[in-house]
């Protein structure tokens, strides 16, 4: 079982690694987006409500720093979401054959989710490293986690979308969902007075609270949000698993 898992993971990784253009874009896009966000934003300040204990404290932060920090989850959610979708989309045909050849659907699903998770970690590591060249968050390790979570969430969402939808519909969804959720609705550059219920249901709500906290506060105050984000990712993984199992089993 372990040998099969390693082999399948290696084969899945090789499928992407042998594509030089994919590697170039995956490595080239995060530095481009994040560095340009720091450079191009005007040097102004913005009042930002930062979690402090049980409440919030309004701090004045630099606009380029905030825009640069926000570009990290925007970048990772876009890239992981699209990647997750295509990992599952391209696996649909091949995995059916592997199931017929004797591979367990659960094992194949684990391979896909592992590939998405590893890629999310790589994209997030690269993006956070690039950010550090221009700005230092207050709590680096947790800042990394606050960016990894939307990457994984969107990767798994992409996997769900890729299991059933066509490439065109799936790409529409992944582009515009990330854009609306991470780029607009949760973006702290657009201050919110009352957070509506549907906004809290979107994937990046909890990670964004953690991101603001870990970026601009010296003390960690958003443990419940972190837990919520982890649970959200776990639920998405379970849903992705159930849908994948159904999709593969239906065509046995």
């Amino acid at each position, binding site marked *: 079982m372990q040998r099969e898992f390693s082999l399948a993971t290696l084969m899945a990784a090789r499928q992407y690694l042998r*594509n030089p*253009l*994919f590697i170039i*874009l*995956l490595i080239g*896009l995060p530095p*481009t*987006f994040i560095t*340009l*966000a720091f*450079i*191009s*934003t*005007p040097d*102004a300040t*913005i009042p930002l409500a930062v979690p402090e204990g049980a409440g919030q404290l309004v701090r004045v932060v630099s*606009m380029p720093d905030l*825009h640069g920090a926000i*570009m990290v989850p*925007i*970048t990772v959610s*876009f*890239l992981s979401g*699209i*990647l997750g979708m*295509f990992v599952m989309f*391209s696996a649909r045909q091949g995995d059916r054959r592997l199931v017929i050849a004797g591979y367990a659907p659960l094992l194949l699903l684990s391979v896909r989710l592992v590939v998405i998770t590893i890629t999310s970690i790589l994209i997030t590591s690269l993006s956070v490293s690039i950010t550090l060249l221009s700005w230092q968050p207050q709590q680096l390790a947790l800042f990394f986690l606050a960016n990894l979570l939307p990457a994984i969430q969107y990767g798994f969402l992409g996997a769900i979308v890729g299991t059933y*939808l*066509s*490439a*065109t*519909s799936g*790409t*529409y*969804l992944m*582009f*515009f969902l990330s*854009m*609306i959720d991470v*780029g*607009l*609705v949760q*973006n702290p*550059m*657009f*201050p919110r007075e009352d957070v509506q219920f549907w906004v809290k249901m979107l994937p990046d709500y909890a990670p964004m609270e953690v991101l603001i906290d870990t970026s601009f506060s010296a003390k960690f105050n958003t443990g419940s949000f972190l837990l919520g984000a982890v649970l959200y990712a776990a639920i998405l993984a379970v849903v992705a698993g159930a849908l994948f199992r159904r999709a593969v089993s239906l065509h046995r």
Partner: protein
Amino acid sequence: MSARHSERLFTPPGMFLREYYRNTLNLVLLVVIPILLIQSFGSALSRLADLFSGITMTLNMGKALGALWSAAFLSGIMGFFMMSGAREADRRLVRAGYHPVQVVGFRLLTVVVLGAIASMVSYIMLIMQFMPSNLALTFVAIYLAASIYSAVGILVGSLIPGELEGSFAMLFFFVMDAFIGSPLFGTTSEVFVLLPTYYPTKILTAMTAQRAHDPVHWLYVVIYAAVVIALASYAFYRVARLR
């Protein structure tokens, strides 16, 4: 024109359009995405603009930009997937006796129609929320942005065969346009004039605010569109000819 000849001319574009519209979800998203983007951009950008001195971004300007970007991005993705999914079908058309120039023409015609539909949907969603002062020119600005993105999609789809890599390449333009080079974050750098919707957004925000804009910006947009469409046509022709 004989019935057989007209059938030969109209079958491929009809086939290309059906290819897109037989997927119900594509149609649903074509309507839902503009509504969501117009609402989100409108609300978010008007709040952001309060923070920057020198930038006036009203709710309506935000909504207008949402409409422009939804039409542009939808058209870009349509153009890209039409090209990346077209290879096999186009190969068959060339084998069936169509000249590559005809196939390129059919594809361009289809993208023009799809871009017009995406622009019209975004435009209708926009005017349901507020009435721009110049209805015709507002539509033209949105449609030009959609045409530019359609051509960018075709260009990317012709040069990059893989859907994953191509989507990443399209993402580059989207993020640069909407999140980095846009007027929303106070960016003033001249570097971003080369982005596909730089001038269309300038024109549209000025028109929505009923401010004067430099008429030469229209010329820049038309030149940009012509260049990208020419490049896209040439890239696609080369691919089609090689088939």
